[in-house]
């Protein structure tokens, strides 16, 4: 097994999750969400007659719902599955904020029609790690401040996790090249590169 195999991003890799960052942090008490997503139905029905039943597998969970053929995977996940971690920066495949894994490969979910993804394994940022069990790359992003506003971050992390698995992390320049499908307008690129490198270096299976 090479280093590059170590970072499963679909849940199977959780035994390698790092222990929590030990740095000090305060508590943030933000105003309530208008309606906590938990109070909303798990899936929201499609409104139109052109909708057809589909089955999607996202983050190892199966969703049965109806979808219109024109619904993108991104909009469907965000608007109807309460999976809002993937972001929409452009809706045109130009920014990478919506990056997810489909059968382990990176994909822009804004350029992907939901109805075409049946039978595939989709992984989003929500499936990469959780606040109490961060993926090593998530911990490294915090450690190296690989973000500012955080809006590009789910996409960067999905891209970065794929890079580690694909073995495109040989040098800083290789990382820069392979991470160039994800725009960070805050300009956190040096932190992103440092975070990926640190996981690559520390990457031994647990």
């Amino acid at each position: 097994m090479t280093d590059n195999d170590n970072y499963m991003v679909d849940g199977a890799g959780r035994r390698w999750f790092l222990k929590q960052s030990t740095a000090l942090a305060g508590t943030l008490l933000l105003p309530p969400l208008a309606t906590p997503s938990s109070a909303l139905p798990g899936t929201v029905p499609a409104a139109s007659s052109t909708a057809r039943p589909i089955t999607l597998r996202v983050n190892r969970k199966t969703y049965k719902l109806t979808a219109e053929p024109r619904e993108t995977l991104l909009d469907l996940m965000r608007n109807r599955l309460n999976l809002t971690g993937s972001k929409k920066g452009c809706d045109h495949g130009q920014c990478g904020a919506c990056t997810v894994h489909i059968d382990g490969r990176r994909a822009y979910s804004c350029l992907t029609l939901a109805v075409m993804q049946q039978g595939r394994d989709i992984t989003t940022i929500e499936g990469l790690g959780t606040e109490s069990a961060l993926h090593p790359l998530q911990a490294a992003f915090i450690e190296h401040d690989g973000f500012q506003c955080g809006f590009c971050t789910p996409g960067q992390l999905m891209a970065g996790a794929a890079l580690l698995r694909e073995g495109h992390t040989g040098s800083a320049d290789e990382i820069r090249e392979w991470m160039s499908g994800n725009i960070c307008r805050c300009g956190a690129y040096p932190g992103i590169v440092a975070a990926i490198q640190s996981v690559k270096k520390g990457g031994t299976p647990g």
Partner: protein
Amino acid sequence: MEPKLIGDPVDRIDGKQKVTGGAHYAGDIKQPEMAYAVLVMSTIANGTIRDIDTADAEKLPGVLAIMTHKNTPRLPGYDANKPGATALGRVLHLLHDDRVDYSNQPIAMAIADSFEHAVDAANHVRVTYQAKTPAPGLPTSKAEPFRPQKLPRPDDPVDTQRGDLNKAMAAAEVSFKQTYHTPTQVHNALEPHTSVAIWEGKQLTIYQATQGIFPSRERIAEYFALPPENVRVIAQFVGGGFGSKGPVWADGVLAAMAAQYVKRPVKLELRRSDMFGMVGSRSATSQQLDIGASRSGDFLGMAHRSLNQTSVFDDFSEPAGILTRVLYKCPNQEVTHRSIRANIGSPSPMRAPGEAPGMFALESAIDELAYQLNMDPIALRLKNYAETDQQKELPFSSKSLRECYQQAADRFGWSKRLAAPRSMRDGNILIGMGMASAIYPTIRDEASAKIKLNADGTVLLSIGTQDIGTGSYTAMTQLAADAFGISPDRVTLRAGDTRQPKTPVSGGSRTTASAGSAVVQAAEAVILKAKQLALNDLKSPLNGQKESDMAVEKGRLFLKSDPKKGEALTALLKRNGGNALEASTSSKSGEEKEKYSMYAHGAQFAEVRIDEALGEIRVSKLTGAYAAGRIVNAKTAHSQLVGGIVWGVSMALLEHAIHDPRTNRIMNANLAEYHVPVNADIPDIDAFFIDEKDEIVNPAGVKGIGEIGITGSVAAIANAIYHATGKRIRELPITPDKILSFTA
């Protein structure tokens, strides 16, 4: 090891939420029955709407309404739709009339039960126009320039004069004169502007992507003729702003109008293309720099005359000359600002508004003069080092620019540079090194905060401020923790909500100076209460002592002269009934503003490698030293510098919103053709802070750091390109075609 608290590279308190997808931005907010709004944009830049046909669109499934100027109810406070007193209050297009003042102006809004249905409906609205020829912007404009009434910051005069410029220029042994051009730029925060509006009777709640929840609340309340208390604006997380989410734009008001019209909560999320026009831009500029100097390099006279563009319906004047007034010593000077009007969306502040284009021009000119005088660019700058602010005739509260030059030059390896242009190469690659000064004013606005010290020693900090990615939530937490000498994890922060104490817009690098000072003062007020409790408490070891003789460290109140004498704050509070101590403060700048001139400074160095045959420019090294008072969080502050420097690379080499001069349409209104840097464009960046202690500037002791990074890096790169190629490009962005062209 004992944490130092302030200055430590503390992780962001919201870091885990951001890396797990658990951070909720406005677009992530959901409501039962929530409808989606999508805008229809104008395709002409000047004229009127002859007809707008919504019949087909209204018949489509799921459509709730199509709002146009024909059916939109007039807002009760619409009369307030005038240029505001500050840069935040803009004139908006709110579907109230048939005027079209620029291309890509919102002219209708489709509201439907799903996003897909709303998009479909918007695509089916048919519009015909009575079109007129649009007035083009810079550089095409032939319009007569006018003198703007004001610059965005009230402290900045439109024009300034000192000494006798004409006499100085006539006497100068060396004279220099050039014009520099910068293009229209669009902020393009990665998060599109988004508002979710929810009405409950006369109460409006808006989840909004904004840099200023309070200005937004006030302006929206004004349009709906409501008292501000009836409007609640919440911004838990904001996906970047860079100025574009500072002013209150039409989208927030339109979302509230739509929600009122269809009687359902409405989400309006701008599409990327919608963001090219209605949410601001950096004005293009044309700037003329005249410098007269002695042969030994003393600046005798200097003029900076800047021309910018504004819209036909609003006033915003890019203040490109303001830093020229203060950066160098020069007894005779004239700085002026003029504008032309064009059929474009209103320009607005964008990261270092005025400062970024102005410093490109000024610092390029100084570099050109250095070559003309055959002097080292750092030596020329040191020769004209401003020890005081000559324009305001005030001393600086602190200034460490000399140290910045020196330390950055050492770390960059400036001594290895060969002075002559085109003198350094690596095979076919031309190598160039350039530098520039960086400077940014320290701005502080009124802000308030509330702190509650609980008997268990934990602290609750309430402060309205939003965090647009800069790390404000973390910095506020650290400042509160530092005041009590406790670990930040003992602090709970309530923020991002107009229900909390009022704070200013996160713009002009002012949040830590403003809100941070309020935190420091609220903490001091709580500590004063604790001291009074102790001195009046017979059981306290501090009974009968003077307040000024006591201090707090590590959560313990003690006597300064005899630190062993004291007690834990928790012990004091528990003995006194276990009640929390609470204080609210409102904090603003005082007379220090009249007595001192306050700026952060820096020195930025750049190395470029340019393919001689292809003109391809790679920035290979960036080193910058910055002095900005106290640094609250080394990690997030470093990211702020890096972000600003990346913006410098972007402005120098990439960004350009290209208007078709015949139609005034932006031809590259998307993220593929409007170029911003990607990871492969950015080298390692060595950005660091110089120790600077400034107890005058504000109670937090901090200067702004969010914008200074861009003020030096643009010219440093342009100067490096000249050094590499011998070609002076005075028009941004510097692209390969300009390097290869022999007429440039």
